[in-house]
């Protein structure tokens, strides 16, 4: 089975459905027609731009260009993590903890997957690297954001019980141990749920895409599995790193709880 190329006319037909929806919203006074149209326009522009960028990128084999795009993706993901924090760490830590943990987990797992597991030649071939990195970052980002948010919230609310343990002679890591575990668990729940529901409740997007593009379903399933495993490992490692660095940052060298380091 070959890939059937979509013509602009095909897309226009699908787009007409969205216009119909917007018209319906206007007629029924739902008041969301403006937002529907703007969101549709945004996704059109963004995805076409991405397509153009990837087209250029896939044509080159310049590792610096690929590295640059990877860095841009990482820094955007870092801002996204920061934006989802209710109480942020002050100063460069707010951005740094999330970005560093994502860098450590996503990039190490990415390199492992490309060199050892898939065996791409050369390993930085953008056709594999960029989509894999995108999937990894997108998911570790969610896990790390949830875990860090839980950590800082609970520490903020739990000052009394953390300090009670310190006052009874506990070390800092004992005093925040249960909060740390809670935060990690919260960060891991989305990916665990996604793994459990995959294929039964939801047909994962990547697998759908591969099947539409003409891959045999078994090959698509295997790739999807690979991605899921990589994502879980990445989310787990990333959340661990973020919670560890974050909880350490909540205490100073005299093991005092420093909530003034949160905003």
């Amino acid at each position: 089975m070959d890939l059937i190329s979509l013509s602009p006319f095909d897309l226009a037909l699908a787009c007409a459905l969205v216009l119909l929806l917007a018209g319906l919203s206007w007629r029924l006074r739902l008041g969301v027609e403006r937002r529907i149209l703007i969101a549709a326009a945004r996704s059109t522009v963004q995805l076409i731009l991405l397509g153009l960028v990837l087209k250029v990128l896939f044509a080159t084999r310049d590792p610096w260009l690929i590295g640059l795009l990877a860095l841009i993706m990482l820094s955007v993901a870092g801002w996204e993590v920061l934006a989802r924090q209710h109480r942020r760490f002050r100063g460069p830590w707010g951005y740094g903890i999330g970005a560093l943990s994502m860098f450590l987990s996503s990039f190490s797992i990415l390199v492992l997957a490309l060199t050892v597991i898939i065996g791409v030649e050369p390993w930085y071939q953008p056709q594999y690297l960029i989509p894999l990195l995108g999937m990894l970052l997108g998911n570790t980002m969610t896990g790390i954001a949830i875990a860090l948010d839980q950590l800082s919230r609970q520490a903020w609310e739990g000052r009394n019980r953390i300090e009670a343990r310190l006052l009874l002679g506990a070390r800092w890591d004992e005093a925040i141990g249960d909060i740390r575990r809670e935060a990690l668990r919260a960060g891991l729940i989305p990916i665990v749920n996604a793994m459990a529901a995959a294929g039964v409740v939801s047909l994962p997007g990547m697998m759908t895409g591969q099947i539409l593009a003409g891959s045999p379903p078994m090959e698509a399933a295997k790739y999807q599995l690979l991605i899921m495993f990589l994502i879980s490992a990445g989310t787990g490692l990333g959340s661990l790193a973020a919670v560890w660095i974050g909880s350490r940052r909540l205490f100073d060298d005299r093991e005092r709880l420093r909530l003034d380091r949160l905003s």
Partner: protein
Amino acid sequence: MGELRLQGIQPLGLAPVDLTVGADERVFISGASGAGKSLLLRAVADLDPHPGEAYIGDTPRSILAAPDWHRRVALLPAEPGWWAETVGEHMPACEPLGRLDLLGQLGFDADVLRWQVSRLSTGERQRLALARLLTLRPEALLLDEATANLDPVNRDRAEALITDYQAGQDAAVLWVSHDPDQRRRLGSRSLIIDGGRLRPDEDT
């Protein structure tokens, strides 16, 4: 066991404090609410960053690990924290016999260890927090309104326990108390925080 000595301890908004509380000495601190009494105790316990040094006996705080300092110079906050479900989980594991003895002196029986923390009254929490703290056998006590929520019977029990402990262990006690009767009853040196300074209280 030894004296507690503060050298230039300066919590936020207070002038530096130099103070020596001898072994087996009791010093009361009073002052309007918001004057900085609790902040001073928190600074001595090293919960907040601040300039200054404290000594227990001859040992400076800065060479002790934080957990060791907390065990030796123990702070009982006005609102002690609880992190687990039952009372027993909060009690340090050492010396079960000494623990029961302490609980008994405060009017509890052994059954209290199985009680749910969420069902304790404020006064019960305060007395249990005192027992929890004394189990660690600290060398100095920092008490923040240790008996503020207690009825007269339990207040007398707690006062007796603290004074007994102090005499038995030669402990230094720095006690923040609003209650002038308590300060007169237990009779000892009294200081007041006034205008950001710690000075002797002439009224008592």
